[in-house]
């Protein structure tokens, strides 16, 4: 499936980018509404926003999502690598391809075309209404205004479909691996269980879309938990990976030994068979900067949000009718996390 879908996604993406970049100013009566201004909207730096922790958190969430780090997908895929495979080159190629599709192709389609047809203010308003509206509501309206719009519209939705379906398979691969490897369930049966699970959790997202149900999932799972899980993964990789092997006289000595040598196993595994050696500076970046950065980021955001008038955590300013559905979304997320935690705990205690 991916062998056909990914090349098609790239081709459709390239065609759409060429179409968008050659649009110029579609309506001469509104010279401000141009593709160039759309690109400017994305790329002009606004340094004042750097003081806002939520911007940093959104950026961290974005990168951990797109590189599949905070979701466990990359770990599930990495487990299929052979010992002689080159981790560095594979990892770098994956992230480079992803950034190419996202930054160059993705960044040159939706927002520039929306600014060209609706202007910056309306585009911002559409984007603020939720993650769904720009891609699924605004884009079809724009395509209707273009010659051969039905063709470009079909390409756009096929592109989204391919991106969505391949991402869904990738996102579910850790769950599938868990069902197969740890619970001994066959792949066919596992697929049915996951399908039922997705169906049950997916339907309310569609039914209660207008109540901000999906935005809750998008924010908590797609941003906050991604950064938190990435922090846990960093600790596991940097400190616990070789920590299990460390023997020391006391707990304190063990912790000190892990702090000192913890990273060596991971670093050695990463660089084995690698043509491109990772610069030594990244050893220290991974060991100290990343954990510290994520901790500061998380607590900084928590403090800034809780003291804000528009607190997302406390749902300030949310319509009470919407808040009920958003609380249900939160509770289902907590339920799913607890359920999975329980499954992992059961498997772990059986192993012991």
């Amino acid at each position, binding site marked *: 499936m991916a062998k056909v879908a990914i090349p098609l996604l790239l081709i459709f993406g390239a065609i759409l980018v060429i179409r968008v970049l050659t649009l110029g100013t579609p309506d001469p009566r509104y010279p401000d509404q141009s593709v*160039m*201004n759309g*690109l*400017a909207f994305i*790329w*002009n*730096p606004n340094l004042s926003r750097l003081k806002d922790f939520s911007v940093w958190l959104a950026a961290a969430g974005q990168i951990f999502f797109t590189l599949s780090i905070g979701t466990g997908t990359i770990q599930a895929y990495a487990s299929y690598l052979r010992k002689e495979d*080159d981790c560095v*080159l594979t990892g*770098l*190629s994956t992230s*480079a*391809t992803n*950034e*190419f599709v996202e*930054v*160059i192709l993705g960044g040159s389609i939706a927002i520039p075309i929306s600014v060209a047809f609706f202007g910056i203010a309306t585009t911002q308003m559409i984007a603020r209404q939720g993650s769904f509206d720009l891609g699924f509501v605004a884009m079809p309206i724009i395509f209707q205004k273009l010659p051969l719009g039905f063709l470009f519209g079909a390409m756009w939705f096929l592109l989204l479909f391919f991106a969505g379906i391949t991402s869904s398979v990738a996102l579910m691969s850790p769950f599938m691996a868990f069902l197969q490897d740890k619970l001994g369930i066959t792949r066919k049966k596992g697929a049915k269980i996951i399908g039922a699970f997705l169906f049950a959790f997916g339907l309310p997202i569609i039914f209660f879309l207008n109540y901000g149900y999906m935005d809750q999932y998008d924010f908590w799972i797609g941003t906050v938990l991604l950064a938190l899980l990435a922090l846990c993964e960093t600790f596991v990789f940097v400190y616990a990976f070789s920590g299990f092997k460390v023997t020391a006289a006391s707990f304190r000595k063990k912790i000190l030994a892990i702090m000192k040598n913890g990273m060596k196993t991971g670093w050695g595994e990463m660089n084995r068979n690698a*043509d*491109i050696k990772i610069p030594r500076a990244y050893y220290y970046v991974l060991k100290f900067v990343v954990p510290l950065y994520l901790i500061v980021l998380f607590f900084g955001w928590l403090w800034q949000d809780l003291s804000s008038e528009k607190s997302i955590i406390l749902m300030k300013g949310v319509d009470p009718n919407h808040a009920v559905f958003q609380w249900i979304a939160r509770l289902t997320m907590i339920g799913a996390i607890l359920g999975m935690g329980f499954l992992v705990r059961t498997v772990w205690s059986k192993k012991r």
Partner: protein
Amino acid sequence: MTLGGNIFLTLGWGFVTILVIYCYRNLLKKSKH
């Protein structure tokens, strides 16, 4: 677009493009061995 925007766009697109070419050249080389 401001000067900053132009710089970011050029660096962003340029860096990603060079990285993709570099990676796939290496992958191609590796697959030939």
